[in-house]
């Protein structure tokens, strides 16, 4: 199995990769990182040219060259882009053109649409039984999770079998394995499916931060102990940018974890192996 962390996790959030590796290691999975990987192309390059798809196809070809049939991803946007690119490869003309370009990068690169792209949430959800057996303690925590939106929609292309694209349950089930309570929050009680606003940041920072604040106000009202993400973009906004949108409301600050950090804690893994500095228990 290969691991494609994407630009953000690779460069800015190695703790997410570290925690994911620690939890996967307990399941006997030791994914190899994709060397020389490039940006997946979406949404930035896609906003400028339809050729963006060749970036994602290049990454899929790297996975093929490693001899892997599955690549695990950690962010929503790269998951979505890689899966859409793999669908695009079903078009014979595009596949020919993509391979022509890949040949010019390196003669041993080929994209034949044999790679399955799995976001960490999906990979872990498929191993729910094994994970349950690895839990050594129950965490007395109230968790406000945010589903990685691009992992579940559009349902007909990137969706996960058995999951409602608008109300996916996989992450909630994983949280509940740890004994923590996945609280319902927001006016609708459905804010776990409300967008964090992160992807809006590039175009409109103010609106993006307003979406983040909306979310933090909702999690505060439901007295959650922590926020939980399964996407780097989401944590970038909801954790790293908290001070930007909570300048006048410091009491709204809340800790935020990645899903495998929470799972790892319940599995009894040491904090250092999970990239965790927060004291939660």
């Amino acid at each position, binding site marked *: 199995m290969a691991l494609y962390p994407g630009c953000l996790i690779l460069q800015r959030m190695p703790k997410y990769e570290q925690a994911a590796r620690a939890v996967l290691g307990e399941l006997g999975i030791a994914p190899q990182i994709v060397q020389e990987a490039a940006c997946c192309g979406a949404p930035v390059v896609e906003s400028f040219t339809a*050729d963006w798809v*060749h970036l994602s196809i290049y990454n899929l070809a790297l996975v093929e060259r490693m001899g892997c049939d599955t690549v695990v991803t950690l962010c929503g946007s790269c998951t*979505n882009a890689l899966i859409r690119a793999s669908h695009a490869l079903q078009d014979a003309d595009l596949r020919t053109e993509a391979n022509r370009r890949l040949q010019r990068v390196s003669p041993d690169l080929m994209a034949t649409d044999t790679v399955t792209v799995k976001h960490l949430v999906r990979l872990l959800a498929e191993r729910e039984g094994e994970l349950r057996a690895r839990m050594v303690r129950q965490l007395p925590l109230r968790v406000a999770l945010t589903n990685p939106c691009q992992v579940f929609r559009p349902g007909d292309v990137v969706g996960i079998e058995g999951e409602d694209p608008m109300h996916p349950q996989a992450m909630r089930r994983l949280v509940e394995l740890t004994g923590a309570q996945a609280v319902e929050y927001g006016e609708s009680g459905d804010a776990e499916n409300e967008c964090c*606003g992160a992807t*809006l940041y590039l*175009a409109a920072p103010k609106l993006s931060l307003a979406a983040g604040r909306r979310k933090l106000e909702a999690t505060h009202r439901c007295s959650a102990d922590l926020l939980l993400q399964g996407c780097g973009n989401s944590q970038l906004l909801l954790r790293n940018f908290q001070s930007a949108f909570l300048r006048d409301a410091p009491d709204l600050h809340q800790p935020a974890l990645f899903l495998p950090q929470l799972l790892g804690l319940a599995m009894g893994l040491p904090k250092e192996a999970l990239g965790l500095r927060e004291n939660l228990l």
Partner: protein
Amino acid sequence: MKHPAACIQCGDCVEVCPVEKVGGHAIVTFLADPDAADYSVWLCTICWRCHQVCPTGVDIYGLMMERRRHEAAPGGYQTAFERVLRSGLALPISQEELDQVRAAWGLEPVELPPADLVHILLHKSPSE
């Protein structure tokens, strides 16, 4: 932008759009009301909710991306795009810095993509 024939202007997309909830107007504003002028195709969190709920299967995402390619980009997008053209990555980092990050977290080393990669894949020169 040409209003898609399949759209029945039901407004379901507006109902679910998180941009609308924080006071912005994304492409969905135009879909529900073709006369609306106060919207931007760049205001979108790429959450695919509109796409998912549209009863007539309008390719809202595709339409938005197509339109973006004809309109001036906000600074954040422009900068990120130019960075990908130059380095193959959306965020700046040198091989040396990356080596340090990986070592500090006890993770195996990672090679950055080849310098001419994006030029070949997108048929574009790094200065474009």
